[in-house]
Structure formats: C-alpha cells, structure tokens
C-alpha cells in the first residue's frame, strides 16, 4: 500500500503545531485522502462495574455450531473431511497430514514451539489449535486468510509445509478408488477439485469443538465445579489483569490483533497493514479453551508454561510504539498470579478420544 503510512502521533504533532498558531479550532489536517479532524475527549459518564453474574453470563457456551451458508453441514461432508484431515497423502512426501501439526493428542496443536514442515524443517510460528475454529472471524496468526475454506488449502500448498500443488493433489486423490464414492456422496455431481476438498476439510474442522469443561459447569450454576482460587482468578481475569479485554466470550477471544510486546522480530499482521503502527508485531488473539494442554505458548512458542505467560503480561512486555495500549505492567501478587493459572486450568475439558479414521485405498 504505497503512500499509506501515517499514524496518530503525526496527527497530534500537527494539531499542536496548529494550536501554537492559534488556529486550532478550525484546523483540518489533510493527508491527501480522507480528512481527519482533531480528536476530542468525550465524557462517557461513569459506568457501574458489572456484577459477577452479568460477567458470567457473557461466557455461556453456544448451543449450535455456526456453518456458513455457502458450505452448510452434512454428515457426508464431515466424514469425508475427517478422512482428508488425517490423510498423509495430502502432503507431497505422503508423510504429513493436517493432523500432524493440529493433533487431537495435543489439544489440536502439536505441542512444539514452532511447527515442523516439509523435510522436517522448522516453521516460523507455533502451530495454532483448530479447536472452535468454526467461530473464527479471520484465519492464521497474521490474519492473511479470510475463510476456513481458504485456510484448509493454505498449508497443503505452502512450500514449507505440505508442499503439495493442488493439481497434483487432485490427480493423486482421483487415483485412490475409494475416495470417489465419498466425494460423490458429499458433493453429488461435483468432482474432486480444490473447492470440494476445501469444503470437506473445513466442514470437519468446524465440528471440532471444545467439550464441556469445569468452567462451563460453574458458569451454569454449579458452585462446586471449580475451586475458590479459580473463581478469584476469573475475577482478576475480568478485572485487574484485563485479560478479557481481548480474551472475551465463551471461546476467550475476539480474534483481534495486538502487539503484546514479545521480543520477536516477526512483524505479524504488520506485513499486511504496513501503514498502521499498531499492527506491527501484532498477532491474532488465540482462544483459551484447552489451554492447559497447549503448551508451549504464544505465536512463537517462546513461553513454556502458563506461569511464564502470566509473568509476561504482568511485566507488560517490550514498550514500543506498536505495543497495544492495553499492555502495561499489572502489579499482580504471587497469589494473584497463581489464582489466574488456577482459573485457566478450568478451561480444559475431559476430551473424549478422537478415533483415527480408516483411510481410502
């Protein structure tokens, strides 16, 4: 985006310069495009803090999985998608499947700091979980893909990951006799092609939902479901520690992009919005379901334990222009930190085992 690079501090400097000339009231600062006026402070009034019951109500589990209109759920699509998801023949080496990096054994991640791709080479970022991805607003750590269907085809083709050109994959799958009737059942009259492949995988992925955790039982009224310590952690999560400003709702994310001050050179979302200072080093806020099973943490896998994660937030991270304004030292006591960790552990469910499907030959 050439020519699209300005930030708020430039505007403020300009506003102050104008104020010095005594023309502030009518100043309009044009940057060649839309015209941005000065920023006013507005009194929003004092909002009464929400009571615990109102806060808890924001964390109720949804009753149904959302599927998009253009790729609605059918059991045939989900069953085919599951086979494709676990099929190593989707990679050029026939050695890696989607499940290699997004494995049910590790909370649908891989338990590694960063992913491992084609030729066992390390990738740049931590493999994210795909749990609750049906609720995702945007995909990948840097938000470069808009839909789960696009996302499903991304790692398959990526040279560093499964390294499989789609035309070659379609030819390979078409040569496996038992796939043909499965595609026909899921997509009557259509062929094995990138669109049906992506639709099937995305449909299966949307069915991967975190199961009921002790936290859900507590939200629904069972006071004995979690410890008093964890309850205090939940209050901190929504209060002093400000976690819920980003990790909000039942899946604990609003899918927003924030630079949380990790000392990594990766610009993340900034690659796609280079003129927006707050997007430099910004990564998508991950959900926190099954978080106790998903170490190591962060987009780069740089923190091994939840305790280290809390310490990072408590310190506020690297102070730089891109760092989210919400990131600042929290001043948490050792007890408060341990309460937060106790709370986070209540988000793990008793995941029932996932059976690996018998694959077509």
């Amino acid at each position, binding site marked *: 985006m050439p020519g699209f690079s300005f930030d708020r*501090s430039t505007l*403020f400097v300009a506003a102050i310069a104008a*104020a010095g000339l005594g023309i502030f009231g009518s100043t309009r600062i044009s940057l060649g495009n839309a015209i*941005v006026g*000065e*920023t*006013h402070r*507005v009194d929003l009034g004092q909002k009464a803090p929400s009571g615990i019951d109102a806060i808890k109500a924001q964390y109720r589990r949804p009753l149904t999985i959302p599927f998009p209109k253009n790729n609605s759920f059918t059991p045939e699509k989900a069953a085919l998608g599951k086979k494709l998801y676990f099929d190593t023949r989707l990679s050029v080496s026939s050695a890696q499947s989607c499940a290699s990096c997004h494995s049910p054994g590790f909370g649908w991640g891989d338990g590694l700091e960063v992913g491992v791709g084609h030729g066992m080479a390390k990738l740049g970022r931590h493999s994210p979980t795909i749990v609750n991805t049906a609720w995702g607003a945007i995909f990948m750590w840097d938000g470069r893909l808009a839909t789960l269907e696009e996302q499903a085809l991304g790692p398959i083709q990526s040279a560093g990951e499964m390294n499989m050109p789609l035309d070659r994959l379609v030819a390979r799958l078409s040569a496996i006799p038992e796939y043909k009737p499965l595609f026909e059942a899921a997509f009557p009259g259509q062929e094995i092609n990138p669109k049906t492949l992506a639709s099937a995988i995305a449909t299966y992925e949307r069915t991967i939902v975190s199961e009921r955790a002790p936290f859900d039982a507590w939200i629904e009224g069972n006071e004995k479901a979690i410890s008093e310590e964890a309850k205090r952690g939940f209050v901190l999560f929504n209060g002093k520690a400000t976690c819920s400003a980003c990790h909000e709702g039942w899946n604990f994310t609003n899918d927003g*992009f924030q630079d949380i001050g990790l000392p990594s050179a990766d610009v993340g979302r900034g690659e796609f919005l280079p003129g927006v*200072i707050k997007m430099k080093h910004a990564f998508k806020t991950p959900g926190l379901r099954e978080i106790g099973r998903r170490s190591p943490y962060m987009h780069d896998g740089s923190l091994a334990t939840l305790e280290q994660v809390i310490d990072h937030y408590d310190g506020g991270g690297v102070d730089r222009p891109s760092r989210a304004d919400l990131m600042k030292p929290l001043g948490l006591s050792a007890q408060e930190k341990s309460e937060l960790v106790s709370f986070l552990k209540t988000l793990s469910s008793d995941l029932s085992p996932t059976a690996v499907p018998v694959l077509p030959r």
Partner: protein
Amino acid sequence: MRKLALFSLVILSGLSVGALAANQIIHQQGRVFSSESMTIKKGEAITFLNDDSVPHNIMSASKGNEFNLGSQPPGTSTDVSFKDVGDVQVLCAIHPRMKMMVKVTD
C-alpha cells in the same frame, strides 16, 4: 508514552473541548460499529466515537479516501470527512468483525 504526553497536552490546554457537531456518529461500544452502512455527502464529516472500554484503530484503505485514526482511546472522538465520491470500506485494524461501508455521494 510520548503519544500519551502529547495527548494530555492537547486536553490540558483546553483545546479539545468541542461539542460533537451535528455529524452522523458511529459508536463502537461492544467491539461493533453502530451501523453497518452510512451515506454521507462529499466533504461532510462522520464522527467516530470510541464509547467502548478498549482502544480501537479505525481506518480505510479504500482508494481516494484512505485514513487511519491510529489507536483511539476509549472516551475520545474524531471526525473524518471524505473527499472522493464512492464506497469506502471502513474497518477496525484491531477487531476483524468491525466493518462498515460509507457511501460518499455528491
């Protein structure tokens, strides 16, 4: 930090005390824009009011009407007027569900 200092300076100088004009206002409470679309005449302003509890970063990359408000703290408002006729996609860079269309007419 520097930005914050500048911001306070503007406020302390009493320079930012301006009532919201009769512009059309877009609210941001609850991480959503109060309207999905809005029609406005060329040269007129929309007021983007952050009445939410977290910062937002309102922007557009639509050709001819690009702007970027940067991190807009809760309790502040900024006016934006559009010079080119056409459809402007306005987004929050932080929150991907915050999207709206502004139709700029002659």
